[in-house]
């Protein structure tokens, strides 16, 4: 079923309860199997809100510009009609933040990814344990299995959280700034891991990131948000132009092609100061 449409967001307008303005305004996005999408944009531009809305946690606004606040469909069904459990079987999310209130081990936390597949009072089955091991292997984290979560480095921790999302055996992965505060090697490893999963398993992937250059290198499609609106959308070459980036991020840049993809070089603004 290659190229099957997984999530479709059409003309979505959203507003948080009590907020003065829309968090998202007429945003559209389509992610199909085998595609890696990157979402870029300044802080507060609505990236995480888009992720929430695409998963039905935030409803479209009642009265947008065109009357209704648009639609969100997952496998052709409105997001609001999905139960959380059914959705967790097809979409795996690596959220930006989570709490670790009580100490737990790596294998335990990856097993949480199997919960949407378990019955109410039934136990953990052999196939669930297999899925956990497979997910750990895929994320190169199998040797971390028995470690306590709090002993992991930032890069290891993110790999483990990605393994938990993979243990859900989803069709779509959503990652919210997964490379935040990772060093170069771990950043690259994570992007390569996600790209590899998209290619090898034909997963859809949507990654929120601040890495313009890595998004340009790895993603098939780029969506740039500014103030809750789509500033640009398309292949990296189409979306990542100098004009768009300068406008959205309010900083002068140069764009150079590298291996057929645009790469951004931020310019120094005050040339008069040595």
């Amino acid at each position, binding site marked *: 079923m290659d190229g099957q449409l997984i999530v479709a967001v059409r003309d979505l307008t959203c507003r948080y309860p009590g907020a003065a303005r829309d968090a998202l305004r007429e945003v559209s996005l389509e992610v199909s199997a085998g595609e890696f999408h990157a979402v870029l944009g300044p802080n507060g531009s609505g990236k995480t809100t888009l992720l929430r809305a695409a*998963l039905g946690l935030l409803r479209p606004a009642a009265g947008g510009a065109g009357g209704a606040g648009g639609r969100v469909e997952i496998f052709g069904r409105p997001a609001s009609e999905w139960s*959380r459990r059914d959705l967790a079987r097809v979409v795996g999310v690596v959220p930006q933040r989570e709490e670790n209130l009580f100490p737990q081990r790596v294998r335990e936390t990856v097993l949480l*990814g199997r*919960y949407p597949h378990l019955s*109410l009072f039934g136990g953990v089955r052999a196939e669930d344990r297999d899925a956990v091991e497979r997910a750990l292997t895929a994320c190169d984290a199998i040797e971390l299995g028995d470690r306590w979560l709090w002993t992991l480095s930032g890069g290891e921790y993110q790999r483990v959280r990605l393994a938990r999302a993979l243990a859900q055996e989803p069709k779509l992965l959503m990652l919210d700034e997964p490379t935040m505060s990772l060093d170069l090697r771990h950043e690259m490893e994570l992007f390569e891991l996600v790209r590899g999963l998209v290619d090898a398993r034909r997963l859809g992937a949507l990654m929120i990131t601040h890495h313009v250059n890595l998004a340009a290198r790895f993603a098939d499609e780029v969506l740039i948000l500014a103030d809750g609106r789509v500033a640009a959308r398309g292949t990296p070459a189409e979306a990542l132009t100098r004009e768009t980036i300068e406008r959205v991020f309010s900083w002068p840049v140069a764009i150079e092609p590298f291996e057929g993809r645009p790469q951004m070089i931020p310019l120094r603004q005050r040339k008069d100061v040595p």
Partner: protein
Amino acid sequence: MKYLALAAAGLGTLTAALLLGPADVPLGDIVRSPIVWQLRLPRAVLGFLVGGALGVSGVALQALVRNPLADPFLLGLSGGAGLGAVMAIALHFPGPWALPLAAFAGAVGAMALVYRLGLMGGGGEGGELDPRVLLLGGVAVGAFAAAITTAIVSLAEAAELRNAFLWLWGGFSGASWTTVWVMLVYAPAPLVVIAAAARPLDLLVLGEEPAQYLGADVRRLKRLVYLAASLLTAAAVAMAGVIGFVGLIVPHLCRLVWGRLHRTLLPTAFLTGGILVVAADTLARTAVAPRELPVGIVTALIGVPVFAVLLRRWTVS
């Protein structure tokens, strides 16, 4: 092995609870003695059920408010129950059930008030419970109820005052087979609700948003668990007064021994809570026999040092 130790502790505590007491029951008469059958056994069973209820609701509420220092009584229930009980004593409500019923009503009233506050905090369509507001609202409602309670106690006659004061610290002198049956009929419903929420509670510990991404219906979960745990605590407090620290210490002990997954945590917390309260009650009625200490004093004397150690561990790590 750990389970074996738990079973041994349970049997040992039960034996001690049946053998020990101010009245001397010869070992040979133990199965026939009315003192054992009509007093010590129902008292031990009720103590076990109450302790178990407190242990389970402690585990559930700590996961719900995502605060490891939360105690079932922190949510205003003890204040409400105390107010109800003291009013029943001061106003001379008649009958043996007046006190537990009034305490229960007070606890449920406090629960409803805190729930309402918690719902407003979440805002939005249909209302969502905000665990932080539950916690703060619970403390506020509890303090308010305690103020009224103290006002009533300070105006009461000396004998009444003593009764009310002792009741507030918990005790099982009112235990009978009837109270055991009431608890046995009442407790299963909230216990089943919490047991069914075991896996979603594992997820909720990660935070509300991550829990939803892993398939938990967080809005419904929070409401169900809050109501079930509160109703369980309300019954415990109606039966035996305020037995502090059990709902706080037991979840931590069980997490240390059995890990953080609620499917093992909930049943072991029930057993551990039960054992702890029966042991504390046995101590309470034998230490200064023929007089009795309130159980809450014994659990506090044991619980506070344990809590201090846990607190230190927590701040160090």
